Structure formats: C-alpha cells, structure tokens
C-alpha cells in the first residue's frame, strides 16, 4: 500500500502576525513547528504501515517555504519513509483552493497513493478545507473527521467518523483521502535513530515549473478568496469578581442571579 501524508508547518508561537498589506501571514522570523494536529495523521500512517507490513511505504508532502523541510523531516523521524517539499515564491499567498491544487499536483508527481492522510485542520488557518479539497481534486473517496481506521484492506476501508452526537462507521473504496481528528491516536515521540535517518534523508523540492498548473492558478493570483482586512480582537469582559472565601452563600447567590437573569433557571 502506498500512503501519503500532508503536513503543514505552522507558527509555534502565539504571536503570529499578519501582513496588513497583503493580508497574509508573516512567516519570516517566526519560530515554526509541524502542525500539532498533523502529528496524528503521521502517527496513523506509521501505525498502518506496522499493521500492513512489508510493501507499505509512506511519503510526507508539504507545501511551504524552504524551512518547511523541517516539518517533513520531523514526520520522517516518526517513521515515514520519504518526503517531498513543494516550494516556490510563486506559491506564496495561496488560499485553501490554490494550496489544494498545488498539493494535488505534488501528489500526482509523487506517483499517487492508495491512502492520503491529512490533519483535521491547521492551527494557523484553521479551515480544515485543504485535505478534503485535495481529495476531491484527485477524485478520491473523501472521509473527514476520521477517528479510527478499522480496516484498510484490498480496495476498501472502514473508518469511524466523529460527528455531532456520536460516531459513524463508514465503508468506502480506495484510493481515499482521510482527514483525521486528534482522538484517533497518541503520536509517538521520535527516536534518536529516527532523527538521524531524517537528517540523512534527501528531500526533493518541486517548484511551479515542475507542476502542470498554469501560473494564474497558483499562489495569490490563483486564490479566489482575498483577505481584505485583519483585526486583533481583545476579548475582555469586565467581570464582576466575588470571593467565595468571604461568603460561600454570597458567591452561590451571585451565580444564581446570573442564571436567573439569563433565563436558565
């Protein structure tokens, strides 16, 4: 089985900034890490490989600036076999559609997969749109919010999906695209051996000229959505402070009066 995993490098700090001119995220000079939710996609791929045994190969694919190869290496250190980085200035400013197009072309360049995995969403953009869009562009079965892969055998798979009020068990044919939720597994820590292997692995880089996509469909020009304004909300409420130590009953009365005021009791 051939497995692909899409991973994104995201700003690690809380202090992300947005370029007011272009409305895009400032990534230069910001410490970055592998999107924490993508760790679960990587982990699931490695577990599937353990389960399916010989002949299963995992490729990690990321689109981003040159330093995003770090995220690819972090995934290799967890047990993926090879990596691919899609990196070109002309990819800059991509919205989720342009990103999905670029990643889909990268997947095809890598030879296609029986199973493609992504995280539920990236902690910076938080859209959760890229995974399913890549799956749709490639004509795969799209399964979102996957919380367990029960079986992945010849030609089909059974997964659980976390939806409102419970879980669905769904059967679908391969090739398939799964976006996985955090509850699917607990990511492993990478071993020293894994880190050394990741360091030694060569990560090919493909640019716009290597992909069969017209330039007007890439990056900022290829993005239907435009960020026109950015603001930084200060969520604060001038809450009334009550010390329960002074009077437990008083504190409870305060809570009750809010409950009554809001029509809850």
């Amino acid at each position, binding site marked *: 089985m051939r497995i692909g995993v899409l991973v994104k490098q995201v700003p690690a700090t*809380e202090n*992300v900034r*947005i370029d007011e001119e272009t409305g895009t995220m400032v990534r230069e000079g910001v410490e970055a890490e592998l999107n924490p939710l993508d760790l679960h996609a990587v982990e699931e791929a490695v577990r599937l490989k353990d389960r399916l045994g010989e002949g299963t190969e995992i490729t990690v694919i990321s689109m981003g600036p040159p330093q995003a190869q770090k995220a690819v290496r972090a995934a290799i250190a967890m047990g993926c076999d090879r990596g691919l980085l899609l990196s070109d200035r002309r990819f800059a400013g991509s919205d*989720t559609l342009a990103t*999905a197009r670029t990643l889909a072309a990268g997947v095809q360049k890598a030879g296609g997969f029986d199973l493609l995995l992504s995280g539920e969403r990236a*902690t*910076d953009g*938080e859209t*959760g*749109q890229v*995974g*399913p*869009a890549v*799956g*749709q562009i490639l004509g795969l*079965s*799209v*399964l*979102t*919010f996957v919380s367990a892969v029960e079986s992945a055998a010849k030609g089909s798979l059974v997964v*659980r*999906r*976390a939806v*409102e*009020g*419970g*879980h*669905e*068990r769904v*059967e*679908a*044919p391969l090739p398939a695209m799964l976006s996985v*939720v*955090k*509850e699917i597994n607990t990511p492993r820590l990478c071993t020293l051996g894994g880190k050394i292997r990741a360091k030694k692995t060569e990560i090919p880089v493909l640019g716009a000229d290597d992909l069969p996509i017209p330039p007007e469909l890439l990056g900022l020009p290829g*993005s*239907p*959505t*435009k*960020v*026109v*304004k*950015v*603001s930084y909300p200060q*969520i*604060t*409420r001038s*809450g009334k*402070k*009550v*010390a*329960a130590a002074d009077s*437990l009953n008083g*504190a*409870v009365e305060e*809570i*009750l009066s*809010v*409950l009554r005021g*809001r029509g809850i009791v």
Partner: protein
Amino acid sequence: MNEEYRGVWTLSEVREGRIHPVSYELLAWGRDLADTLGVPLSAVLLGSGVTEQAPELIVHGADQVYVVDDPNLAHFKADSFSKTLAELVNRHRPEIFIASATSSGRTVMPVLYADLETGLTADCTELGIDTKERLLLQTRPAIGGNVMADIKTPLRRPQMCTVRPRSKKPLPPDRSRTGRIIAEKAVPGSLSSVMKLLEFLPEKNVGAPLQDAEVIVAGGKGMKKGANFALLEELAGLLGGSVGASRTAVDLNWAPYSSQVGLSGKSVTPKLYIACGISGAVQHLAGMSAADTVIAVNTDPEAPIFRVADLAIVGDVLEVIPALIGRLKS
C-alpha cells in the same frame, strides 16, 4: 459572467430525518444578505422523505426551497451530496451559498468548492454585504481567535462560506409567510455514493452534543480528579446542559476527547459557559470566548479565564459547585 449569478442560498441540515435548527440560523443570516442585495433567499433541502418539512424553511425566512427528495440522500455522504449540490448550483447559479460549519457542512462545502473552483471561507462568525462592490463580506476568527479576518471572493461564483453555529439567532417563526417549494431532480450519477454507512454509534454523554448545547459546564485540572467530574455532570443535568473539558482534563482521562473545548477541540457558542478550575490558556479561550455569558470559578484571582468572565468567583470549585447544586435542588 458574474451577473448571471443571482440570489442567496442556504444549505439546510438534516439529522436523523429532521431539519436541524442550525438551518434556521443560516436563514436569519441569509435573510439579511438577500434583503440588502434585493434578491430572493432560497433554502436547499436534500434528504429522503423531507419534502413535507420544507414549509418550515419558509416559515423561518426562505422565499423558496429547492428540494431533492430521494432515498439515496437518506444519509449524509460527501460525494452524493456535493454532486447533487453542484448540479443545482450549475442549474440555478446563486451568487452566494452558505452552509453551517457542522461536521457535514465542513465536509460537503470543501468538496463542492473544489469542484466549482470558487472561494470558500471557513467558520465565519459575521456576514455582511459590501454594497458598493456587491460582494459578500465574510468575517472569521483564525489562529485561535487571536486574529479576525475579513474575506471576500471578488471574481468567482458562488461566494461560499461555512458559518459557525449559534453565531445568529433564528428569526421568530412566521406562519403567515408564503413561498415556493420546488422539487428538483438530480441525475442518478449525482445521487449515487461510493460510501456505505454501516452504523451510527451514539455518544453516551450527558445532554446535547457540545456544539448544540445552550449551557456548558466545563472542568479543568482544578477539578483535582476524574471522579469530581460527576459534580459537573450533576450540575449540567440540573441546568439542562452538557459537560465540557479543558485539554489537560482530557489528557488526564477525566473526560472524553469529544468534550474537549478549544483550539484542538471544539469551538462552542452556548448561552452560558461555566468554567470550573480552568486556567484559561489562549488555546482554551479560542474555543469558548464567544459564549454569551461566562461564569468562572478558580482559586487563583489572577487566572486568565477571569479576563473573559462576566462573573468571576474566586474560590474552590469543590466547595462552590456542591453548594450551587444544593441550592438548585432545594
């Protein structure tokens, strides 16, 4: 070319054969947009045996309802739903198409927009119209609620987005409203799915799913041990609410992941959020600060959760909550 696209559409959500109330919240947004633009508001309803419920959508603000009623659409599937919607969009060409940011909305819309090659804005909390340019103005939080972005789709149609549940109240039902119910057909190729729903395993949580809950009683590490979550369940039961948790509480196995609120959990928008022994890390605030009212109980007067609280109780949850339960019971 964009002038060919007219009208505002909302995607109705059907769960277990019934129209879910988030559909009416969308109609409230859609009504504002359609009135500003001076165009009709249409609700799209896909399902099996759903035609008889279509009038409810008119009662809640739609001018017309496009219904595809087919046994193949009995359960939500990404492929059959998106193919059917693509057919409808290409036939009738709405300028705006919005859906709820629920698990099915956040599945079908990404598949559909990739097909239509238009823009899709995720999880909006505010919608408006730029009347000068006749464009949908979509506002959404990103990066854990630290940033609000205004987004437009100037050139492609329809302009699509998902909208966070509970970001608007439904319009009061108006039984005197009239509208058209239009039965639509889709080709068999659109209605068929490669997926098979084998079974549904309901959660055994107290109360409504978190995203639907009007009241959430959430616990963090300050609850001290898993067994104390029984107090939160009891309180939630008394208030008709559901139990939520911080990531730390989930990591400690005091609560299931399905109840995690925050950046890597759920975004919730209840009327009331009671935070019990939760410090209020930004990643937690990202998921709950949009609640109408927040009450927080924490021993630390400097806890960041108090910055978003309407009522800050500085005290021990293990004293305050039992006392509150006692008062509610008497």
